[in-house]
């Protein structure tokens, strides 16, 4: 379908597609196998200026919005969810600074992120705090001109690879969620280290590790926004970033559909290509319908979010749920279409199926998203 992109939007899409076709797809199986972080590919993405799409021009970026980054992420997601996750996680890590950071923090960090010289990561999840963000146990205590952080963050994408970390910690436990504050931690800060690399089912080219803060001292001015406003910043960040996860589902679904149709045209059984059988045709048709419907929803949601509406959370969650549930279903169906071959690592669809699962889990499980949507509806109709 033609979504009538502007010339600039088409440029972003074409450039990301070229990177996916020439750099990502040829290396995705190897990086999945070796679980290596895609540094060289991300360097090429940086050279192509794509890390700066959503960063304002005054900080060296392109000054575009959610829709434009969605266009790039769709193509990266078509190439490899793991590599695309490494790219997307940097945006997630820098959104808190963009949304609530002081001019000094923006000046200090955004230009290097825009050029891709530095990458970012977002640290919310802990052993006892994920869906329930108010269960955070990491603390930050002001000591003179420094904040002292203690605690551990879990399953942090880009951990060990990023140089800039947006971290939420409790500065006043008594106040619950209103006692949480966000900070910028740099990779070289004293008392900051990482846990071992996690072994994952999918997105194995991305890095997932613990962040360990042991009397980690950072300057006082590394606070993002005001004290106690960390939870609000987190929610606003996730509202912005969820269409990015949703579109990874669309890119992945498209890749699974492409592989399925190509295979079904080549695979001959009972003397005919299997695409000529109605059972296969109907599966492919359902896959194509779902991918296109999800794309339309995510594109619409991203444009809606760029207008800064009041119901941003609901729309953001709606597109995340729909597109990532779609990706799971379509990739499972792709393995079914390729059948025995689809189950083998020689073909890319088994990886796609493994990769799809995380999309329903990270940046808020799809169950939590439905809570958000339900609560918004309850409010809307009162």
């Amino acid at each position, binding site marked *: 379908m033609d979504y009538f992109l502007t010339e600039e939007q088409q*440029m*972003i899409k074409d450039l990301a597609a070229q990177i996916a076709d*020439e*750099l990502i797809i040829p290396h995705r199986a190897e990086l999945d196998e070796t679980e290596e972080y895609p540094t060289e590919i991300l360097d*090429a993405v940086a050279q*192509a*200026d794509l890390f*700066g*799409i959503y960063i304002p021009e005054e900080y060296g970026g*392109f000054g575009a919005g959610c829709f434009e980054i969605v266009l790039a992420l769709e193509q990266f997601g078509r190439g490899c969810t793991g590599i695309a996750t490494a790219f997307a996680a940097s945006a997630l890590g820098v959104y808190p600074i963009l949304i609530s950071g002081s001019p000094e923090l923006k000046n200090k960090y955004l230009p290097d992120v825009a050029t891709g010289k530095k990458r970012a990561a977002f640290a919310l999840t802990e052993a006892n705090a994920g869906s329930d963000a108010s269960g955070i146990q990491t603390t930050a205590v002001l000591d003179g001109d420094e904040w002292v952080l203690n605690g551990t963050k879990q399953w942090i994408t880009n951990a060990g690879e990023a140089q800039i970390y947006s971290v939420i910690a409790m500065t006043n436990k008594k106040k619950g969620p209103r006692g949480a504050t966000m900070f910028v931690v740099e990779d070289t800060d004293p008392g900051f280290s990482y846990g071992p690399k996690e072994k994952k089912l999918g997105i194995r080219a991305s890095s997932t590790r613990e962040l360990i803060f042991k009397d980690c001292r950072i300057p006082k001015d590394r606070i993002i926004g005001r004290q106690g406003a960390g939870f609000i910043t987190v929610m606003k960040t996730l509202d912005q970033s969820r269409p990015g996860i949703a579109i990874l589902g669309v890119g992945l679904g498209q890749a699974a559909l492409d592989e399925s149709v190509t295979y079904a045209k080549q695979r001959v059984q009972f003397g005919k290509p299997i695409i000529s059988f109605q059972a296969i045709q109907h599966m492919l048709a359902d896959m194509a319908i779902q991918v296109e419907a999800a794309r339309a929803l995510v594109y619409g949601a991203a444009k809606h979010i760029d207008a800064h509406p009041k119901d941003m959370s609901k729309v953001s969650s709606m597109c995340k749920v729909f597109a990532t549930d779609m990706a799971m279903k379509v990739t499972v169906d792709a393995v079914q279409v390729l059948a025995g071959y689809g189950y083998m690592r020689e073909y890319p669809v088994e990886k796609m199926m493994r990769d799809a699962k995380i999309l329903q889990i990270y940046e808020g499980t799809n169950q939590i998203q439905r809570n958000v949507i339900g609560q918004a509806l309850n409010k809307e109709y009162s």
Partner: protein
Amino acid sequence: MNIFVCIKQVPDAKDVRLDPETNTLAREGVQSIINPYDRHALEEAVRLKEKYSGTVTVISMGPPQAEVILREAVSCGADQGILISDRAFAGADTLATTYTIAMAIKKSGTPDLVLCGKQAIDGDTAQVGPGLAERLNMPYVTCVRKINDFDNDTLLLERMMDDGYDELEVQLPALLTVIKEINTPRLPSLKGKMKAKKIEITTLSAEDICADSTQLGLTGSPTWVVNVFSPEFTGERSMITGSVDEQVAQLTEKLTELI
């Protein structure tokens, strides 16, 4: 450093086929690309510019649609593009081509360095680089695989040979032709694409370059292509079997028959 890079629009090698009726290249529906070796020349020029500062000018001789590759080169880091285009240039062989490009370069500036790909993947002559150097009265090195340093107007470089490589020093101004081992060409950048969209490509005609018309196009080309054809496959093959001694004896006999 003022660098000129010569680039050529060629049919994508993945799509090349001959029209069986006319025995000429079937260009309809075939995608055109920057000659792959020229991409490496462009990348090396951009790297030199980034390291030592200067400007990179891409220049191409071809029909008006070759403007596309000049814009693509700008999106990959070139500063400006020049298209040498005129009906009078049609049918040029490498002699007429080097004359035309040399006249255009002389008209457009005084390069410190001219970079070319080793050869174009359509004509495959590898003559334009050296020919152009002669016309520009510059020293040249072909098949450069690495530029190690630039100091005091001198490039230190490595030239690929059949049995190794030579280390050479070349005083600028000079012309180099490069091989694909020299670098990995970058993809376009978003800012580059924006610039390429807006930039004005200079077009030079035969008149603009003050050319002698007898040295242009078909008139200025002593090379005449009489026919282009796909060779017919006539070879026969047979398997030699038996013990090693028997196979050697059979092979020797067959080779002797041929002498």
